[in-house]
């Protein structure tokens, strides 16, 4: 993808215009189609040869990138030390469960009051089947995976102005959109509007395919009847005995459907990053960080706030403060440094690197993502609405409601993801609220989709990523211009320091970006260490 000058629009300009004219989902989709979501470069477990004798590496940050780097370098025989700001490993790989306390920047502490076994992942929460690096580490570390339901045809699409605010089942919107479009295309074909483009022989095949893809009847119409109801669902489902006869449902009229705007999120589940099968760790995404932590326990120093990074010709020193003990400054030193501190923070840490890397670190603001977890007294979405996992998308500021992909049919309470906001305007707004306000707003908006909210709401917890002390942002928000100018400089070694993390990848926000960037970085580190060893 090259930027063109003159009258041609840049990708970013184009995307912005798509966002303005067609909405956030269309833009998100366009971002994917333009390659923002690249396939993982993971080529199977890395196999480093033995480390040079006595070689050491300092890893800054015990998020996924730091943990992967530490794990592989230790296995190769490097002497590894990890410094981590939090009192736990994982970084943004994190699960909040009942009893957890979380204090955000500004000082407000929330206590998670979920019932045993219930949780929310404030950060990453799903693993596409092609994120082979993450899946590989889960397998190697014994982290059990289960399906993550991304696409649920019985979940809703909702807009406050669409159909009087009445949520529509994805099943019906999808069937009606496909059906109407197929009918129009069939009509155009039969009216010879496509004669210039499609041969007569192919037109016959096209018509057959449209009947199949759009659930058209024998006259190529998308109308109320058995064909359409088999896709969109029935007014009364077929059964047995005397009450067996089904009643067909009435499709939404084309114009109503188009004007509702609900088609905008239809293709989400078809995105490469969202296609089935997706996975989640049993018991929460944080299981991955915890599994790495068990493996690397003696190497990780927690509560270590890095305040200075200094390299010289022989190695790298990191000065840190112990935030737990409140004791004075200490220094860790090694031959090499893999620094995975988010750029939102690294930009403020003195570090003697050259101008190219320093400018790259300063060039990336962070997205303002935000999630709200809500516990309800019962799993009404399953009991009342037969929604088992999956996601309801809405134009309301909460963005989406996601239903748990585990413990189906369980008695007792249940936890929903009540808001996942990555639209910048709404997420900045929600970040500016108190945690209690965010929760109450999520309940208020969600009750427009599920009226049961009002009666069944129990408690909630809200995590705004700019308020997370260890991250101070959700993920690196690269512009095309910044990436063209700075990305290679960000990833290149500067002396004895190399950076890794999702910010050093083409997979923003995805853990797979952290994994693949860490593997790329340590591969280069290993080569340099051997070259230096040979020269010594």
């Amino acid at each position: 993808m090259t930027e063109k000058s003159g009258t041609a629009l840049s990708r970013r300009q184009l995307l912005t215009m798509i966002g303005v004219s067609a909405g956030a989902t269309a833009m998100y989709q366009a971002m994917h189609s333009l390659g923002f979501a690249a396939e993982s470069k993971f080529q199977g477990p890395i196999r480093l040869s033995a480390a040079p004798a006595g070689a050491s590496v300092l890893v800054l940050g015990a998020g996924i990138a730091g943990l992967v780097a530490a794990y592989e370098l230790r296995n190769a025989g490097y002497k590894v030390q990890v410094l981590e700001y939090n009192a736990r490993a994982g970084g943004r790989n994190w699960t909040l469960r009942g009893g957890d306390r979380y204090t955000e920047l500004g000082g407000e502490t929330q206590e998670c009051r979920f019932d045993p076994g219930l949780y929310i992942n404030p950060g990453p929460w799903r693993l596409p089947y092609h994120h082979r690096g993450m899946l590989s580490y889960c397998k190697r570390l014994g982290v059990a995976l289960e399906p993550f339901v991304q696409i649920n045809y019985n979940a809703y699409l909702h807009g406050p102005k669409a159909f009087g605010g009445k949520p529509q089942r994805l099943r019906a919107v999808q069937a009606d959109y496909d059906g109407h479009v197929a009918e129009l295309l069939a009509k155009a074909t039969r009216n010879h509007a496509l004669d210039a483009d499609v041969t007569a022989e192919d037109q016959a095949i096209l018509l057959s395919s449209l009947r199949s893809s759009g659930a058209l009847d024998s006259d190529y119409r998308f109308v109320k009847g058995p064909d359409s109801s088999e896709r969109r669902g029935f007014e009364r489902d077929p059964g047995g005995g005397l009450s067996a006869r089904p009643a067909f449902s009435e499709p939404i009229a084309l114009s109503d459907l188009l004007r509702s705007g609900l088609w905008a999120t239809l293709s989400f589940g078809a995105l490469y990053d969202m296609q089935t099968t997706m996975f989640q760790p049993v018991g929460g995404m944080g299981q991955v960080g915890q599994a790495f932590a068990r493996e690397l326990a003696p190497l990780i120093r927690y509560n270590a706030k890095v305040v200075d990074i200094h390299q010289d010709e022989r190695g790298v020193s990191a000065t840190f403060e112990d935030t737990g003990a409140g004791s004075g400054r200490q220094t860790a030193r090694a031959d090499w440094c893999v620094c995975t501190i988010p750029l939102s923070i690294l930009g403020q840490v003195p570090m003697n690197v050259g101008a190219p890397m320093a400018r790259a670190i300063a060039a990336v603001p962070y997205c303002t993502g935000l999630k709200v977890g809500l516990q309800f007294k019962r799993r009404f979405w399953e009991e009342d609405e037969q929604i088992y996992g999956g996601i309801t998308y809405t134009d309301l500021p909460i963005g989406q409601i996601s239903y748990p992909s585990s413990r189906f049919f369980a008695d007792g309470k249940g936890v929903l993801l009540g808001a996942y906001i990555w639209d910048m305007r709404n997420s900045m707004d929600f970040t500016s609220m108190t945690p209690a306000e965010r929760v109450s707003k999520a309940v208020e908006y969600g009750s427009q989709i599920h009226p049961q909210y009002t009666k069944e709401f129990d408690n909630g917890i809200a995590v705004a990523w700019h308020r997370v002390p260890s991250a101070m942002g959700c993920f690196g928000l690269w512009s095309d211009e910044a990436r063209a100018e700075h990305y290679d400089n960000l990833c290149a070694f500067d002396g004895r320091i190399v950076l890794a993390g999702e910010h050093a990848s083409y997979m923003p926000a995805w853990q797979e970006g952290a994994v693949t960037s860490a593997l790329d970085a340590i591969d280069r580190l290993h080569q340099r260490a051997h070259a230096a060893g040979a020269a010594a």
Partner: protein
Amino acid sequence: MNGKKQAAAAVLSSGIALASIVLSGLLLKGEARADSADNFDSEAFSMKDGRQVYEHICRGCHMANAGGAVGAGRFPALTKNPALGSTQYMALTILMGKRNMPAFGAKYAVGFGGPPVTLSEAQIAAVINYVRTNFGNHYRDPITAAQVGALDRSAR
């Protein structure tokens, strides 16, 4: 950058009235905002008052009392901060962003999954003047929207 600028301008000028959504019956802890409205139902950030701009955007990082915060890094306080002495510095920082702080000028702002959040010259002037006369700040030299616009045109 014309296409992007026009698109952003189209958003700003769409002028859909802000719907005021009232919180009902839920007790709030901490420092609630002056208004219970949110941005919903407007195509862009349309609030014009300096206090509203602060409370719906800036406050997320700079905090309710403008005291900033310290974690692994820090969000600067907007009190007793010598940088506030220069309205031009503040305007350019808001227009162009600085490190983790996103740009809010239409020429520089980056969005994700939707249009970026942009502020007009008038909104930027309003929030600068609000911050510089609140939170214990007592500056007496306000900046105008026209001055913000001139800075925007002179940058880069």
